[in-house]
């Protein structure tokens, strides 16, 4: 067992599960979406990106790309959340909430691709 591989897979799967958990629920209902879960998803996603740095294979490059997409989507989602809570005059409206969740849902797709690539890579190794 390769410890590095365990940590790597752990973070990648965790990024997907946290992200999925956040997205689950009604699209525009703020009560269904936990801000802490978004925060955790963003942090884990950033760590995933760093873990994927420096891999020179083609698959490695793809994984880094999906991770960067997930980061981008989650940061935009977090930005919308901050805007709704702090800046918008009307506060957190269902419309803003829907944007936050849809951006996070996009990130979930990117994370899903990441996990699929991880599975593909594992399947390719015949040992």
């Amino acid at each position, binding site marked *: 067992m390769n410890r590095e591989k365990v940590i790597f897979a752990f973070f990648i799967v965790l990024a997907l599960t946290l992200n999925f958990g956040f997205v689950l629920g009604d699209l525009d209902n703020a009560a269904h979406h936990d801000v802490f879960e978004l925060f955790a998803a963003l942090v884990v996603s950033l760590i995933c990106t760093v873990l994927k740095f*420096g891999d020179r294979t083609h698959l490695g490059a793809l994984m880094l790309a999906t991770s960067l997409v997930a980061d981008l989507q989650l940061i935009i989602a977090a930005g919308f959340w901050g805007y709704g809570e702090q800046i918008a005059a009307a506060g957190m409206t269902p419309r803003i909430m829907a944007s936050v969740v849809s951006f996070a849902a996009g990130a979930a797709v990117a994370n899903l691709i990441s996990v699929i690539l991880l599975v593909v890579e594992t399947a390719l190794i015949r040992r």
Partner: protein
Amino acid sequence: MNNLVFLFMRRLRAPLITLITVYAITVFGMTLIPGRDADGNVWYMDFFHAFYFVSFMGTTIGFGEVPYEFTDAQRMWVTLSIYATVISWLYGIGQTLAVLQEPMFGRLMRLRGFTSHVRNLREPFYLVCGYGVTGSIVVKRLIDRGVRVVVVDIEQDRIDALELDNLVIPVPSLCADASLPDILDHAGLQHKQCIGVLALTNNDNVNLSIAIASKLLAPRRQVITRTNSEVTTANMASFGTDMIVDPFRAYADYMALAARSPHKLLAYDWLMNPHHRTLSSAYKHAPGRWIICGYGRFGRALATAFSAEEMEMTIIDPSPGNLAPLKNGVVGVGTEAHTLLEAGVESAVGIIAGTDNDADNLSVIMTARELNPKLTTVVRQNLHQNALIFRNSRCDFVMEPGRIIANRILAQLKTPLLPLFLEQLQQQDDVWAHTLINRMSSVVGDRELDSWSVQVTPETAPAVSTMMAQRPVALRYLNKDPRQRDRMLPCFPLLLKTAEGVHLLPGELHQLQAGDELLFCGLGVAKRQMEWSVNNYNVLHYLLTGEDPPDTLLARLLRRSDQESA
């Protein structure tokens, strides 16, 4: 390029993850700890404010407590956070600096700079592997002629020496193992402008692998190598290496020439060496028996060359086994008087100290000279660092392998016609060589005798080619001074190569034909002047006719109407 970024990212993984984790924990902690607002109500910091606060706390340790004054619990958490964030920042910055200072990083940076420098070369260049004595001489003289060079050497010291040599044209150089095809590729082996590969390392195997790699990757590229053993020479010749220089054999041939025909030797020497021997040195040699000290690679090459000339010789070597097949060998080192006397030093005309030990060689010469002051002395210098002693040893010939190889290679690189001429020279007699050397001497005196070739083709001699279409051009016009046609340039033609054959010292009335190749020798100034007459139509027209008319379109029209009316 990619290697660098990947190395950087790999090394910064740990500090980046630490930084993200510490930030996440502190931000998360800030949102969990209850605070009090201005009115004393319980208040939880949201992520936005927490991230804002941690960001400036981590980098500047604070603009104060925002948006409300902190409670004691919050302050305790902030205290911990300050240490955690500051330490993780220091760790991250320290790691970055450490990566920048790593030798591997520096090596990759240098390789990258070298590769891009070579890739961007837009002029023809030679790839020189090995910057020892030979390499440095070759590089210096190529640079003096304005030819670009790329250098690879395995020792950093020599690359440093190259940087300190103050060459006028920048020379991309890399410290790496030239026997690796990758390195050769980075050094421009497959570059379109690479016109030749010079394998000059002191290791036969490395030279061999460079020659093979070059011949496989770019079959038509010129490859010149040095070698120390006959096995390697044969091996290299087998796959078409263009020129193989064996310094011992080269010098043995040179010595045989010296002993047999001193004037031919002078002609050879003047054409090959930048600092040539004086004319008077030709009269010293008398025919007779030679003593050779040391029967190693050099001694064997000498014996072969001497016996081909049917010259008498006595060989001294410390090992009886080496001397077994010889009838006139003397066992001993040659540094003691009794060995030399046994070898008959008093009746010999010359002695060659050719062992691989410099101190022994000098000792042999000094002892021999005491016994017989009239000896012609030849000494082999093995280490370049001993140059000062050898220069002052008052020997007639100092044999320094590095310099011999360099001169041979430069003669080849100057123009391929020069080796052809030297080959032809061997077949002439000494009287012919004597006339030649007198002619050379009257042209250049004590200055360096340069040689160059002129090819009569539209690309290399446009003016001559155009002129030939209108009127015949005799060889002597090229010899005239383009500034004043009744004066001659300090040079003369050595050889003419036509489709039919090769002529030595062609007559000045020879009518130039397309495809003729000429070899000239003379002062370097003459070479530059001759470039005018070869390339500039107006200059050549002046040389042929003595007229220097304007050659504009208008002038030509006027002239034509003049001729028509007349």
